[in-house]
């Protein structure tokens, strides 16, 4: 990995600090001054120590358009989650277990590791699919009901709706 | 309201029962780990419900820590099964 410039590091640190501060307030569930002061110090130390840990994003991720897409993504995701659960319920409760499992591979256009993780997690939580492995840009997916083995068609079937939005966020 | 909580607890117990059955039966280590994972999640939900029954806010901390650490416990054994450890 190439050396990061100071600006990049500092902006990451700020983002990290902000994120951790939000988490801290959620942990303490209090806005009293003592908690906030201690929280600022503690989160600053932790974000300094884990400057390269958190994510590769910069504060540019906080621009309104991306936040709008994030919220949209959330809704799409929750819809898919509910659909997948209904799907699981249907399969589990049917006595004959209607499954036809297999493994397919799809290719994604996403580049950063973090966005790939979000995509893979979304795929895992959507109807009938489970990410088994990820090698570079290829995702290997266990599909409970294989409809096609062609990568492009499978991609359309499984991941297109997420990737469209994720490309806009990252 | 309390009856709804009781019904929910009943469903959770059934879920725990089936998961623990799979834990004892499961032919491979992976099946057992799936059962452990499921047990962890159901128990986290159960702890939150119990915090409601006891009416103590601070008990939620335990559920939080439990959720995080159960996840790491699964990762440990997954890494061992993978052959990396």
């Amino acid at each position, binding site marked *: 990995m190439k050396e990061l410039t100071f600006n990049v590091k500092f902006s990451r640190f700020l983002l990290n600090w902000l994120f951790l501060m939000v988490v801290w307030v*959620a942990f303490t569930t209090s806005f009293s001054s003592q908690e906030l002061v201690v929280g600022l110090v503690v989160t600053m130390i932790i974000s300094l120590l884990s400057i390269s840990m958190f994510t590769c994003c910069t504060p540019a991720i906080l621009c309104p358009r991306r936040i709008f897409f994030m919220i949209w993504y959330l809704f799409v995701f929750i819809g898919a*989650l509910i659909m997948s659960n209904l799907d699981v319920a249907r399969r589990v409760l049917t006595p004959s277990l209607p499954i036809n499992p297999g493994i397919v591979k799809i290719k994604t256009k996403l580049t950063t590791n973090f966005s790939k993780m979000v995509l893979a997690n979304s795929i895992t939580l959507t109807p009938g699919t489970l990410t088994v492995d990820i090698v570079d840009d290829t995702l290997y997916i266990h599909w409970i009901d294989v409809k096609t083995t062609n990568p492009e068609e499978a991609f359309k079937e499984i991941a297109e709706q997420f990737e469209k939005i994720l490309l806009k966020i990252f | 309201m309390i009856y709804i909580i009781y019904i929910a607890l009943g469903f959770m117990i059934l879920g725990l029962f089936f998961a623990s059955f799979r834990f004892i039966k499961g032919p491979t280590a992976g099946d057992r780990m799936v059962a452990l994972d499921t047990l962890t999640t159901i128990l986290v939900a159960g702890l939150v*419900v119990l915090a409601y029954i006891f009416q103590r806010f601070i008990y939620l901390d335990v559920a939080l820590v439990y959720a995080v650490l159960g996840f790491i416990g699964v990762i440990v054994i997954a890494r061992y099964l993978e052959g990396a450890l």
Partner: protein
Amino acid sequence: MNTAYDIIGAILILIGSIFLFLGGLGIFRMPDVYNRLQAGTKATTLGGMSTILGIGFLMVEDYWGWLVKAIIIVIFIAFSNPISSHALARAMYKRKHYPLIMSKDENMDAYREVADKNQNKEETI
């Protein structure tokens, strides 16, 4: 059953507990480890999230911290559950434990391809 929060909470708890039960039943009934993972992960994730949020809504009038803490637990679950099930699936896969039913031969090829590529590239932190 007084306020809207209570009703939302009650519905969420009921749905969530049913899905938790279905998750348990799913890992009991499904034939092999990947299908069990499918059923277990999805159902318990939604079930746990929904139950916890339901409790948060029930108590939010008492103290707003309940809902905030419930949300943070939900976020933790939503991130950690798929990761752990992915790690388990990959581990079973690396141990050459293949699904019971394979649909097409091409998929077997896809499998082997991954199995060969188990070496990761160096990535610094």
